[in-house]
């Protein structure tokens, strides 16, 4: 309930008291009211501050709306996120080149340090942390994307560590009628989508479906892979390098929304089959595939009329994840050292026999997860200048795994010198990569927004999370916001956050190179931020965000003493600092400029070595021009620079790269049709994202690509 609502009883009381007076004055008031001509002469005081409360939010936040997304010609979420200051979308090394969301120099291979929410519900999978393998989200269903850089665990709990990405899907209010779209372009890319929004018998109904496929860019060729080196040592000829990265995929994304009165239901179904990029072991695997699917059902009940000054929001959600994989870890014809326990072992000192795999070393690990959660929020603003938020929730999660393979413990023992492609099912045995498991988790949080005076606001909050496997964690935050001038806001923010160890890190077995450790603690971060948001004149916004953070207990694999295995441990500490500059300028609706620059320096707390492979500097520049009705032009440039190698990686530093995108859209032809044409990486720049040294020359990004799109609107 707003302040105004709270005042209503007072206003009513006053109105009643003054009613006779007011009635007597009403006619006069009507007459003395300014007419149109006079109103046009009234001098107007222009507030240069943007109307959205974003600049007042107790966090460093960016919001990208469906209108912004359409303007920049983005077709999926990663293209949208790349425009956020200090956020870079990189590539995961071992898992099909999944997107890696690096924020302010903090990244992990599956973005497990960034919390991804869909309509406020976490979609973090248990096995690896981070979103589902192959995660990619088409934009047709997206109403807006809210990105918080910095810690969010005091509100969102686990994994809101480097930042939070919350995707809000459309409802019937965002779409009127139906729209069909068709797009096609480079790399045999094809895309069909449909959206519908409307009122049906008092129900808000929204539906969207998006299907797309691509062969991927066959020009993304790597000259050598890990197998090339093995071939040289062992005299084999198994490597498929030089060869392209496997970036083909086919994806279906379906959303359904239904709302009436206090009830809102969202259903989201997603399925993707895709190639494995550079393979799981830095060895090209063009035949391998990952097939992931997930279903999210989310029911919300919200009431603001049950008690004066209270708003209650109850949410039930269910997330089902299914991941199937078919890996050729080593290609057909590979000769691999196999230790006595059947595992692949390159460790010196471990007795191993060289075994020929004429059909390749094949693994098919799969997993299914169920996440059931209940979340309850009560907001109360009935006491003076405070607004309280009380939150509690319960999450029940389980994972079941399955695995077939032609190698490893329980399958072979290194005595057979030739092993064919016959697979052994180790599901439910002691030899599976991860046993079936469960995690229960509950939490409480409390937050107070205190309007100390007109210009000062203090937000303080704390959240306690208790996990059945690794214990409890307590995360506070505080934000002091000053908005004493209409054109300037300043914020001082502190927060702590944690990342929950994934099941792989806690419980992985039968892989000597990466054993789980049930004694792991969560990774922890403390962050301090100072923010200035300044609107010097109408249409111009500038912002400076300064940050410093310190991370304790980053999890990494550590060689075990007196053994040849490696186990996950809380070993690394990281510190970092930096800044982001933001500049947005718009001239009416005709021209808009959106640009930002981010600089960060992060290093290992103990060794002082720069954190490898994260961008030290990045620049985004977007210009959007509407020269005449229905014609939209845009140009975007992304510059990624200053990426270091790990101390033990002797390759030359990564080259900086600049990608430029151009687009034109002709909208509302005959009021029904939209046409657009978009060119990405127009200068065919060979940008590269870091690989492990198994693929020495890094992962090339897609070359120049063009796409054409047609949309048809029906009311």
């Amino acid at each position: 309930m707003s302040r105004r609502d709270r005042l209503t009883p007072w206003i009513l009381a006053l109105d009643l008291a003054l009613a006779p007076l007011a009635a007597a004055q009403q006619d006069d008031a009507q007459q003395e009211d300014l007419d149109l001509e006079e109103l046009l002469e009234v001098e107007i005081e222009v507030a240069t501050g943007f109307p959205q409360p974003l600049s007042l939010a107790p966090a460093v936040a960016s919001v990208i709306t469906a209108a912004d997304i359409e303007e920049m010609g983005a077709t999926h979420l990663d293209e949208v996120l790349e425009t956020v200051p200090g956020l870079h979308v990189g590539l995961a090394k071992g898992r099909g080149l999944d997107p890696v969301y690096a924020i302010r120099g903090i990244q992990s291979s599956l973005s497990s340090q960034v919390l991804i929410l869909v309509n406020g519900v976490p979609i973090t999978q248990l096995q690896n942390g981070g979103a589902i393998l192959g995660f990619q989200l088409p934009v047709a269903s997206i109403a807006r994307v809210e990105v918080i850089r910095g810690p969010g665990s005091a509100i969102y709990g686990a994994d809101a560590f480097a930042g939070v990405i919350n995707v809000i899907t459309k409802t019937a209010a965002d779409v009127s009628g139906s729209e069909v779209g068709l797009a096609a372009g480079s790399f045999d890319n094809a895309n069909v989508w449909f959206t519908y929004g409307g009122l049906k018998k008092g129900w808000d109904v929204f539906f969207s479906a998006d299907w797309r496929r691509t062969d991927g860019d066959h020009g993304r060729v790597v000259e050598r892979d890990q197998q090339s080196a093995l071939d040289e040592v062992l005299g084999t000829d198994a490597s498929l390098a030089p060869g392209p990265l496997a970036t083909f995929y086919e994806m279906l994304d379906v959303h359904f929304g239904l709302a009436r009165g206090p009830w809102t239901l969202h259903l989201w179904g997603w399925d993707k089959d895709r190639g494995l990029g550079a393979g799981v072991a830095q060895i090209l695997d063009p035949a391998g595939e990952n097939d992931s699917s997930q279903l999210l059902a989310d029911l919300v009940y919200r009431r603001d009329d049950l008690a004066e000054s209270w708003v209650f929001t109850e949410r039930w959600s269910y997330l089902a994840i299914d991941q199937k994989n078919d890996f050729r870890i080593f290609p057909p014809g590979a000769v691999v050292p196999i230790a006595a326990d059947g595992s692949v072992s390159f460790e010196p000192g471990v007795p191993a026999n060289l075994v020929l795999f004429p059909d390749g070393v094949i693994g098919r690990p799969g997993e299914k997860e169920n996440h059931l959660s209940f979340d309850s929020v009560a907001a109360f603003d009935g006491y003076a200048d405070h607004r309280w938020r009380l939150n509690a929730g319960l999450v029940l999660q389980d994972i079941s795994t399955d695995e077939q393979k032609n190698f490893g413990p329980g399958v072979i023992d290194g005595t057979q010198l030739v092993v064919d492609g016959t697979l052994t099912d180790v599901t439910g045995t002691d030899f599976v990569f991860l046993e079936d498991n469960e995690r229960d988790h509950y939490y409480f949080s409390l937050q107070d927004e205190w309007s100390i005076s007109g210009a000062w606001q203090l937000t303080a909050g704390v959240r306690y999370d208790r996990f059945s496997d690794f214990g409890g964690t307590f995360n506070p935050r505080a934000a002091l916001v000053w908005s004493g001038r209409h054109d300037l806001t300043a914020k001082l923010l502190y927060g702590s956050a944690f990342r929950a160890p994934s099941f792989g890190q806690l419980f992985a077995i039968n892989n000597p190179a990466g054993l789980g450790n049930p004694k792991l603690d969560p990774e922890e971060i403390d962050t301090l931020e100072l923010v200035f948001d300044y609107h010097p004149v109408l249409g111009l916004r500038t912002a400076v965000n300064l940050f410093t953070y310190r991370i304790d207990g980053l999890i990494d694999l550590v060689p075990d003493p007196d053994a040849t295995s490696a186990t996950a441990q809380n070993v690394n500490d990281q510190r970092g600092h930096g800044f982001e500059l933001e500049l947005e300028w718009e001239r009416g609706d005709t021209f808009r400029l959106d640009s930002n620059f981010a600089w960060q320096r992060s290093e290992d707390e103990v060794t002082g070595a720069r954190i490898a492979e994260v961008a030290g500097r990045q620049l985004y520049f977007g210009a959007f021009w509407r020269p005449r009705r229905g014609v939209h032009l845009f140009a975007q440039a992304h510059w990624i620079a200053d990426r270091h190698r790990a101390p033990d990686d002797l390759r030359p530093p990564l080259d900086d790269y600049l990608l430029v995108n151009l687009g034109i859209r002709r909208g509302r032809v005959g009021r029904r049709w939209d046409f657009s044409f978009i060119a990405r990486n127009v200068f065919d720049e060979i940008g590269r994202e870091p690989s492990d040294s198994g693929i020495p020359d890094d992962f090339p990004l897609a070359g120049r690509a063009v796409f054409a799109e047609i949309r048809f609107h029906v009311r």
Partner: protein
Amino acid sequence: MLRAGATLAMLLSCGLIHAATPAAQADATPQPEYRVKAKILRSFASYVEWPESAYGGPDAPFTICIFGADPFGTEIDEAMAGRRNGERPMAVRRPRHLEEARECQIVFVSRAERHRQAAILAGLEDRPILTVGESDWFIQDGGGIRLAIGRNREGKTKAHFEVNVKALREAGLEARSRLLILAAKIYR
């Protein structure tokens, strides 16, 4: 600032400031943009004639609807409180759906909806509705009146508006000649 705003809102709702300030308004103190625009929006009701078919019934109110993110806040509610247009009481609504907006007499299309305003305007064009908007391309997209602010030669920021006579005519609305005299620009 919020508290001062609420106090002001309270005083305004009591009709205390209304009676006391017209002279001051026209003179010195600049007013917040959306307070002025709310009053201008209200005053459009007196400069346009709606057919009887525009209303749900003889007792139906004269309804101004804000479609999309509301830039007015409470200003529009305060500007309309207790007002009448002819015999009809004036009301403000904030419809979430286009279907609901089709029952309004004036629809203010928020600038936040500019990426789909052509579709919104197309969805209202067969109804006797005065559409008012602020985006640069509002008239070109088929809107009725575009409301804007700009600096005059003395460097003072004031409101002005443009009228799309064709759109009004096609909607079955009749603009009074005074409206066209006051318009900064007329599209026929």
